[in-house]
C-alpha cells in the first residue's frame, strides 16, 4: 500500500515519529513496524506492554518520542490520525462513489416510528405481549410442554422405564435414583426434555427473530434513560431480555457491557429479579387463572428490579455508564440464520445444563437417602412459614436451588395437591423469583464476577428474597387483600 505522509509540523510530524519508532523496534511483532508505531502513538495499552516486554533496550527512547510528538499537537494523536484517515476516505469516495439522493424509505419510516416513544412504547409492549406472553408463555410453556409431558412422557417414557427399572434393578433405593420422585428419568429427563427444552427453544427462536430484525438497538435507545437510573446503559437490554430465556446465559453475555460496575449491577439484577423462561413458564401456569395475583407478582418484581438497581448504582463507585449504539436498518430476518442461531443456542444450553440436571438428581437422591435434605428442609420451614406458606413449600425452595424451575415446578405440585390461596400464590411466586439463582447461575456468577462478588450476591439474595416476601405477605394480609 502507498505510504501516506501525515500533515503537521515537519520536524515533529507524526510521520517522522512513526519512522523513528519503526527504526527502534527490533523484535518481531507479526504486524509491520509501521502498524506497531502507529498503535503506540495512539496509546494502545496492549501494544505498549508488548513493546515494553520485547524491546526493553529501546523502550525508554520510544516513550520519549511519543511524549515529544504529543507536545506538538493540540489534540490526542489518535484523534489527529482519525481525521487524516477520514479525509483520505472522503477523497477516495468522492472520486469513485456516487450516492443516490437521500429519501425516506418505508423501512426508515417504520424505524423512526419505533424509536418515537409515542408509537415505540406501545409497539414494545405489543412485542413483549406477543413474543414473551403469547409465544413463549402460552405456546411454548403450555401447549408444547403439555403435549410432551402428557402425550410422550406420562404415556410412554415414564411407565416404560418404571417397568424396566423394576425388572433390572433389584434394590429399591437404587431404583429411586432413576424412577423415584426426583429420579434421573422421572425428573431430570422429564424436566430437561419435556419442560425446559421446548420453553428455551421457543424463547431462543423469539430472541433470534428480534435480534436479526434489528429491533434490539431500537429497544436499547428507548430504554436508555430508564436504565441510566439503575446504573446501566441501554446496551444492557440485550442481556436483560436474554435473561428471560436463561439468566445463566445472560450473565455470560454481560461481557458486552463496557465497565465492571455495569457488569456487577447487571449480574445482580439477573440473579435477583429477572425470571428465566423455565420459571416464567411455571409461574404463568400457576397464576394464569388469577390475573390479580399475576399483576401483584409482576408489579412487585418490577419494583424490586428498579429499586435494587437504583440503590446499587448509588452505592457502587465508578464511572457513570455511557450509551452509544449503531442503529442498523430494519430487516426481515433470514429464516436459515434464525434457525441456525436458535439451534446453536439450544445446543449450548442443553450441553451446559443436562449434566447439571443429572447431578441435581444424584445430589437430591443422596441428600434424601442420607437425610441431609430433611434437615435442610426443616431449617427452611421457619422462613417459609414466616412468609405465610405451608411448611411443605420449603421443599420447593431447597430444590429450587438445584434448578430455579424445580422450585417453581415443586410449587406447582404443591398447589395441585393442597390449594394455596391467591395471596399465598403471589407471595410464593415473588419469593421464588427473587430467591437464590439456580446452581448453574450461582456457578456462573462466581466464574464471571469472582468469589467475593459472586458469593456476596448470593448471600444478599438469600436474605433479601425472604424479607421482601415477608413484607409483601404482611402488607397484603393487613390490607385484607383477596387475590
Amino acid at each position: 500500500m502507498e505510504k501516506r505522509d501525515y500533515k503537521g509540523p515537519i520536524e515533529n510530524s507524526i510521520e517522522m515519529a512513526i519512522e523513528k519508532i519503526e527504526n527502534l523496534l527490533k523484535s518481531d511483532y507479526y504486524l509491520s513496524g509501521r502498524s506497531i508505531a502507529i498503535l503506540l502513538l495512539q496509546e494502545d495499552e496492549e501494544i505498549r506492554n508488548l513493546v515494553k516486554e520485547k524491546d526493553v533496550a529501546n523502550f525508554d527512547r520510544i516513550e520519549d518520542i511519543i511524549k515529544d510528538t504529543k507536545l506538538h499537537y493540540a489534540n490526542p494523536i489518535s484523534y489527529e490520525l482519525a481525521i487524516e484517515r477520514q479525509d483520505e476516505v472522503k477523497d477516495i469516495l468522492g472520486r469513485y462513489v456516487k450516492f443516490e439522493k437521500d429519501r425516506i424509505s418505508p423501512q426508515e419510516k417504520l424505524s423512526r416510528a419505533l424509536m418515537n416513544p409515542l408509537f415505540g412504547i406501545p409497539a414494545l409492549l405489543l412485542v413483549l405481549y406477543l413474543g414473551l406472553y403469547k409465544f413463549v408463555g402460552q405456546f411454548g410453556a403450555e401447549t408444547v410442554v403439555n403435549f410432551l409431558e402428557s402425550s410422550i412422557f406420562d404415556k410412554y417414557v415414564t411407565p416404560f422405564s418404571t417397568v424396566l427399572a423394576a425388572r433390572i434393578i433389584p434394590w429399591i433405593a437404587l431404583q429411586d435414583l432413576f424412577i423415584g420422585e426426583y429420579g434421573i428419568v422421572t425428573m431430570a429427563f422429564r424436566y430437561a426434555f419435556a419442560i425446559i427444552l421446548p420453553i428455551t427453544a421457543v424463547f431462543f427462536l423469539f430472541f433470534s427473530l428480534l435480534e436479526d430484525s434489528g429491533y434490539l438497538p431500537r429497544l436499547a435507545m428507548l430504554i436508555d434513560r430508564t436504565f441510566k437510573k439503575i446504573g446501566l446503559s441501554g446496551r444492557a437490554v440485550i442481556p436483560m431480555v436474554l435473561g428471560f430465556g436463561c439468566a445463566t446465559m445472560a450473565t455470560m453475555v454481560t461481557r458486552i457491557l463496557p465497565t465492571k460496575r455495569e457488569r456487577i449491577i447487571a449480574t445482580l439484577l439477573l440473579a435477583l429479579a429477572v425470571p428465566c423462561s423455565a420459571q416464567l413458564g411455571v409461574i404463568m401456569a400457576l397464576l394464569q387463572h388469577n390475573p390479580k395475583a399475576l399483576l401483584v407478582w409482576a408489579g412487585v418484581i418490577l419494583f424490586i428490579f428498579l429499586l435494587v438497581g437504583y440503590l446499587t448504582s448509588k452505592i457502587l463507585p465508578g464511572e457513570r455508564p455511557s450509551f452509544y449504539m449503531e442503529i442498523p436498518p430494519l430487516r426481515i430476518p433470514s429464516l436459515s440464520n434464525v434457525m441456525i442461531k436458535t439451534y446453536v443456542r439450544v445446543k449450548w444450553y442443553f450441553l451446559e445444563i443436562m449434566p447439571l440436571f443429572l447431578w441435581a438428581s444424584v445430589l437430591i437422591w443422596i441428600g434424601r437417602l442420607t437425610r441431609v435434605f430433611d434437615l435442610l428442609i426443616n431449617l427452611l420451614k421457619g422462613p417459609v412459614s414466616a412468609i405465610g406458606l405451608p411448611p411443605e413449600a420449603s421443599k420447593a425452595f431447597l430444590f429450587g436451588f438445584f434448578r430455579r424451575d424445580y422450585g417453581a415446578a415443586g410449587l406447582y405440585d404443591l398447589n395441585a395437591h393442597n390449594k394455596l390461596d391467591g395471596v399465598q400464590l403471589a407471595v410464593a411466586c415473588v419469593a421464588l423469583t427473587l430467591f437464590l439463582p439456580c446452581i448453574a447461575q450461582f456457578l456462573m456468577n462466581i466464574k464471571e464476577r469472582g468469589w467475593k462478588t459472586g458469593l456476596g450476591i448470593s448471600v444478599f439474595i438469600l436474605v433479601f428474597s425472604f424479607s421482601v416476601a415477608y413484607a409483601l405477605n404482611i402488607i397484603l394480609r393487613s390490607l385484607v387483600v383477596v387475590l
Partner: protein
Amino acid sequence: MDKKIMPLSKLDINKKAKVSHIKTEDKAMLQRIIAIGALPNTDITLIQRFPSFVFQIGKSQFAVDKELASCIYVRQI
C-alpha cells in the same frame, strides 16, 4: 461570518449540519466519538432527541445519550 456553532444536542431536527469540533477531556469519550466517525467536516443530521439522541452520518445512524451528544459541536448549513 460563520453560522452559529452549537453542541449537537441543541441542533434542530432534520437540519443539515457539519461537525465543527469535538470538545471533551475524557479520553474514553473521545474514543467513542472516533469510533462513530463524528469527526470535523463530516455531514451530520439530527433525527430525534428523545428519549435518546439519534443522528445520521453518511448511511449510518447512531443512538447516543445526552452526554455524548453534548461533546459534538456542529455548524448548521
